[in-house]
């Protein structure tokens, strides 16, 4: 079970990483296209190699249309896809200084309560994101340049949000079991070495 959920969280994170890399390449191509477009329109290119310049312009060398919108939608997906890994590796920033002297038992109770609340918040976020998607679906709103339905963007993000919610609930279960049994099932921040 632990392996299944960690595997899912890692797979989502790698998927998000691939999307991030794709967005970076897309932005790079868009910048290159814009630079070349300006160059080919310039006096230098038009007087020295007008044939090549106009051929390239006709072929559509220029910034990628809607790159901005793709980055926004893709980035939201990537961040949601990154959440489960952070959840399962206890990667969230905390202030440890005042709780370091608590007894192991008190510390486990605190951790269990925190994880339960966190899980509830992640479930609410996923649920409300679904509502948000449903209302975008009803309104039929489209993105400005690409004219794709906005609810697509929400749907992609929802995939990550749902996995994050599942991971959150799983971690809450793990911490409750640890609190009741006094055994350590998952070491917090075990993968922090990355």
């Amino acid at each position, binding site marked *: 079970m632990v392996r299944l959920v960690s595997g899912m969280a*890692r797979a989502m*994170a*790698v998927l*998000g*990483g*691939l999307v*991030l*890399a794709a*967005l*970076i*390449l897309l*932005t*790079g191509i*868009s*910048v290159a296209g814009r*630079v070349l477009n300006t160059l080919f329109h310039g006096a230098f290119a038009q007087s020295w190699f007008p044939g090549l310049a106009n051929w390239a312009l006709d072929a559509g060398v220029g910034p990628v249309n809607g790159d*901005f919108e793709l*980055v*926004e*939608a893709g*980035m*939201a997906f*990537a*961040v*949601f*896809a*990154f*959440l489960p*890994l*952070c*959840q399962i*590796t206890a*990667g*969230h*920033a*905390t*202030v*440890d*200084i*005042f*709780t370091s002297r608590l007894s192991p038992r008190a510390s486990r109770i*605190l*951790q269990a309560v*925190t994880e339960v*609340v*966190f899980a509830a*918040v992640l479930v*609410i*976020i996923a649920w*409300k*994101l679904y*509502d*948000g998607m449903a*209302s975008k679906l009803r309104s039929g709103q489209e993105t400005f340049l690409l004219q794709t339905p906005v609810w697509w*963007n*929400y749907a992609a*993000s929802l995939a990550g*949000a749902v996995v994050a919610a599942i991971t959150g609930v799983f971690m809450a279960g793990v911490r409750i079991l640890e609190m009741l049994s006094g055994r350590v099932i998952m070491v917090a921040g075990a*993968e922090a070495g*990355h």
Partner: protein
Amino acid sequence: MSNLDIGLWSFPALLLLIFLRVPIGLSMFLTGGIGLWLVSGLNLPLAKLKTETYSTFSTYSLSIVPMFLLMGQFATLGGMSSALFRAAESWLGHRRGGVAMAAIGACAGFGAICGSSLATAATMSRVALPELRAYGYAGGFSTATLAAGGTLGILIPPSVVLVIYAILAEQNIAKLFLAAVIPGVLAALGYLITISIYVRLYPDRAGTRPPVPYGERMRALLDVWPVLLVFGLVVGGIYLGWFTPAEGASIGAIGTGLIAFFNGGLTRKTLIDSFLSTARSTAMIFFIILGAAFYNGFLALTQVPQEISTFVVSQGFSPWVVLTLIIVFYLIFGCVMDSLSMILLTIPIFFPVVMALDFGMSAEHTAIWFGILVLIAVEVGLITPPVGLNLFIINAMDRETPIVETYKAVAFFIASDVVRVILLAAFPIITLVLLPG
């Protein structure tokens, strides 16, 4: 209770949660959500959530954050850390304390292609720590040098913290990056001076090594050209308006990715590890940003930030006293809290206060100068005991050195930081001189 009271009571409530080790992002999210519920009923926070998580995570200017993080991961894989260290060592290594100075120089160079302190500290330690120990540098002195050097990762642009500040304070990222250049160089110089003072006080804690011939020095210097190219392209390109900061971050990630690829550092396994590491940090940062957006939305509704800034101005305090208090606050809180959380938590309160005071500068200059001061003040927190993150990361790499030894030696570097904060606060021109008009 009036809305203002609820707003004011949210501060102790939030601090209590944070000190109970509730993740900082979650603490802000809960305080903000419950606060909104108290002020205007449960429907408001729930309705906000329908669009606010998506719109926060899809904010175009925030896409710089994961891009810079991935760029830093690739920079780590590209072998540039050892090339930088070799170059710095061949020029400085024979001086007294020279290998430690070289580590600082290499950190500064690495900071120019990496926007994260922790990554800089960890990467440079892997290269420089064994060398320092081999040349007879004391354990605590070596780890403290690298911990301090690591903060250059964020002080020298590109810098993730500055990106967040720019968004919160609605300032121009390109100008902030430019303004950070001289303070960043001053930081490196300050650390070099600290080292030369330290080795004169404790001559037995640093060894010596023979000088390197000039031909070899030149060759070592030539090896770092990719770093200069990427830094020049990213920071120069953003500044000259060739591309937006997010586009610059993309170009930087592609650049360091290519370096890593051609140096054989980029394999399937390291690529996946880079993704996982970027994923963890990105998720952590964005969850804090989400919590802060929620909390600050609530605060704005209760009018607390305006009331505080009106109060401070009406009291007629000297602007410099207020500024000093704010910086001291950052230095103290930096001992227990990470820099991004601190900025997200405090800028919405402090920024209107500072902007309402008269420092004899234009609003934009005040905002940029204050941003750099905050950046430096929170960065000191990375190397202040007891929970300076850089100290832990590096100490974990050198098992023989007790952390107390690191604490003792790092005090010298903290002193250098404090001197620099005072200098930059007293002479805003140092920060602003590079800015046009």
